[in-house]
């Protein structure tokens, strides 16, 4: 147990540091990303996924990757995505950024964190009712892009192409008005 805790703590500190530095813990920047005024954070997220997918392919080749694909439930994942998007657009925080922003000293993030604990507790209470209703009947399994392509590397190329196009679209559609540095 000991090493797992230290690894988690170390990973968390590094992760929290980077997302603070890029501005993801700043709800003002997050709102401006959603309003198509600043493209830096969405491009940061998409690029991090592209690089992680390539890195993970390397880990898999080396035989040291620990993967666990979450299933797709057409209804539960969809309803959750819609609700999550509404909450994210409304407050400018997502679960991970509330911890880093609270540590940074943003009081509104502390309230988002407390609200999050309440939301998770309410869901946990209703799990036995909601999961059989919304999740299980529409669960299509742990599907990945690799199920539709010839090989895993081909699926990574597909993912990189899609996300690369998204980054290009953000460059083109998001109206940057000020300094170029974070955008």
């Amino acid at each position, binding site marked *: 147990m000991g090493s797992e805790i230290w*690894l*988690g*703590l170390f*990973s968390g500190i590094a992760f*929290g*540091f*980077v997302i*603070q530095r890029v501005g993801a813990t*700043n*709800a*003002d920047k997050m*709102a*401006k990303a*959603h*309003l198509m005024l600043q493209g*830096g954070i969405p*491009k*940061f997220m998409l690029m991090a*996924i592209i*690089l992680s997918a390539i*890195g*993970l392919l390397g880990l898999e080749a080396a035989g*040291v*990757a620990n*993967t666990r*694909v979450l*299933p797709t439930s057409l209804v539960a*994942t*969809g309803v959750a*995505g819609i*609700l*999550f*998007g509404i909450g*994210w*657009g*409304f*407050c*400018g925080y*997502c*679960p*991970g950024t509330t911890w880093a922003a609270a*540590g*940074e*000293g943003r009081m*509104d993030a502390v309230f*988002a964190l*407390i609200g999050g*604990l309440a*939301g*998770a507790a309410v*869901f*946990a209470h209703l799990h*036995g009712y*909601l*999961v059989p209703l919304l*999740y299980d009947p529409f669960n299509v399994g742990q599907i*990945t892009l690799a199920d539709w392509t010839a090989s*895993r590397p081909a699926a990574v190329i597909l993912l990189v192409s899609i996300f690369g196009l998204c980054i290009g679209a953000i460059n083109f559609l998001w109206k940057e008005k*000020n300094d170029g540095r*974070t955008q």
Partner: protein
Amino acid sequence: MEKKNISTAYWPWLPAAFALAGIIVFIFATFGPPASSSGFVSTIKGAVQTVAPEYVENKTHYAMMPDTGSWLFAFVLGMAMGGFIAGRTGRIPVRDIPEIWEKRFDSSRTRRFAATFVGGFIILFAARLAGGCTLGLFISGSSQLAVSGLYFGALIFAFAMVTARLVYGRTGKEE
């Protein structure tokens, strides 16, 4: 001049993406898919089981998650510490109410804190229904080519963009 200082306090997105991806790959090698909404469940489980152990034992959602003595809890705690260290060593201004919110509404702390409480409630309720959040489902999932992560990611961006438009109207554009 002041404005320039603030803007250069942020890291540009491309090198930051390399840094984050390095951390994510490290986590895949040493633990598994990174996640943060699970850390909320671990926090509650750790707290509630000290007062109501039978309740926690009988709830599936707590049975499937470790308590506070876990990587998942250490990670979210670490994120708070990382945010603290980054905040204290950098030049990014820290505010309790975002500028754009203050422009759109007012500087009422009660209103903003009530709003983020509600927002936080919704995102965690939703993340637990999906099985993950921006990190645990979208970022971790998409890195593993999971359709669940891509499906969730497309919806959260689309609905966050619509919601932000409804909340802020033209506020952001008037700057």
